[in-house]
């Protein structure tokens, strides 16, 4: 997993790490069981709120993942997705996984 994100070969010293953006990294974020497990755990945390109100759950998710509330567009997109994705908990997990794959989540500003 670390190798995918440019973790250098431990056999050689490295003055400067490379920083790449390639599809296998995206595949890991989409399909790696560990990422899916984290998304499922995140969804479990959101579940009590989501049962009350999807809007509250999305706001909580943004605050936890990105330390900010979603703006109106983001909130609308997220709600539309959650409402159209069937059963609540798997839908939440899939939404959480998408949050992990956000540029804003991956890159340090």
């Amino acid at each position, binding site marked *: 997993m670390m190798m995918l994100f440019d973790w250098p070969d431990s056999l050689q010293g490295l003055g400067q790490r490379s920083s790449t953006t390639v599809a296998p990294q*995206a*595949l890991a974020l*989409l399909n790696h069981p560990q990422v899916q497990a984290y998304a499922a755990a995140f969804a479990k945390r959101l579940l009590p709120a989501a049962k009350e109100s999807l809007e509250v759950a999305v706001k909580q998710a943004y605050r936890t993942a990105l330390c900010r509330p979603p703006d109106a567009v983001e909130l609308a997109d997220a709600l539309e997705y959650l409402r159209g994705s069937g059963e609540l908990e798997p839908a939440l997990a899939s939404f959480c996984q998408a949050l992990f794959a956000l540029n804003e989540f991956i*890159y340090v500003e």
Partner: protein
Amino acid sequence: MWNEPRMKLNPAYSSRRDFLQRTGCGFGLTALSAMLADQRVLAAPASVAVSPSFAAPLNPLSPKMPHFAARARSVIWLFMNGGQSQVDTWDYKPGLAKADGQELKGFDKNTGFFSNDVGPLMKSPFKFARQGQSGTWVSEIFPGLAQHVDDMAFIHSCFTATNNHSPALFEVNTGMSRMGFPCVGSWVTYGLGTLNQNLPAFVVMYDTLGRGLPKGNASNWGSGFLPGVYQGTALNHQGQPINNMERSASLSAAQQRAQLDLLRKLNQHHLAHNPAETELAARIESFELAYRMQTAAPEALSVDAEPENIKELYGLNDKRCAHVARQCLTARRLVERGVRFVQIYSGGMENERSWDGHKDIEGNHRQFAGETDRPIAALLTDLKQRGLLDSTLVICAGEFGRLPISQKGAKPGRDHNPHAFTAWFAGGGTKGGTHYGETDEIGHKAAVNKVSINDLHATILHVLGMNHEQLTYFYNGRNFRLTDVAGEVVRGILA
């Protein structure tokens, strides 16, 4: 295949901020042109007009211009792991037969690995016959390859600096006998990128019968100090062939598509507030690529979809060689789809699990020739009939040769010999039926036109259109090359 003017290879890894400062706000267009270039290259390699210095920071695997017109665009390296015996395969030595049973005078008993098992000179247990127009002497254990000798160019005078598996494997793969350096496949993908972004650029296949990995394991296809994207993707022999390539069972294709659409929307929204951030755009694109790879990779690897006559040709129905047949057929499917570099290891780790015939050289080499002869012959036939042999360089070589004397035992074997081994090439603009270099009378040491591993590497890069002295990477305060400070192109095997 490429005849564009020579362009300097790009060191590629200036920082994002450096790059942005230099290119300023023209970035959106640059990104677009690079993405389009990826698509165009697939369709028509000759029409690429985008400078690699722009494409590279976005996608380190974008196709790049070679230094000069390339003879080949892909490589398939058949690695005879453990060390094939030259005198029992491609280096016919009547002189050895004459000297059979005699002591090899002046022999350094530490040449091989078992200094207490040194036996006398031993002739090959196999019959040899002349084959093809070239009249190449071929061992009876290669009835299939015997039909292809006029397409094969042999170098009989290869040698390595070391007599043990791991360091010799490292040397043959990376040019250095110590571990941790970038291998040929990594250098090639660093230099040229790849032609199909939906598949890994550099694919490695190792023994699927559970006999282990070559010694030194993944260091043999590691990218060393080159960026990690250039390391080989080794196909797993069980479960998913490529990690993370399969969607989880809990998610349907439609659900994943919807998830990606959401991700794309949210990312685009973010990008709109940070328009100058190139990596953000590249990251968005990488998810679309990943989605396509999930379909493209299983498709490329599905050898079972091949017609029955092709399966039969490779020997997929022949128990003895079915495992190598699958790999050779996979290799053809991969290069056909634009994969740059494929390496297949014949045999597992060492001793009786590979070509490492310390005991019973006859039984060992009959077995491993039996596993590889038909699939490799079929690969040559198949590449040729599809017109791919011209653009694919096929290499067959192991990490060293074996001694002309016997290693004592119930059934005599042969010990390691760093002083001589044969490598052969086919396709990619090499001259079929040629024999370059010679060993001494008994096949012990390379004697005429000796070819070092640096020379072999220089030749491989040359066939791919690269000057081995100009393919460099700045690391630890200096420019490094695959060929270090040596290497001469072996022009004698080129058409």
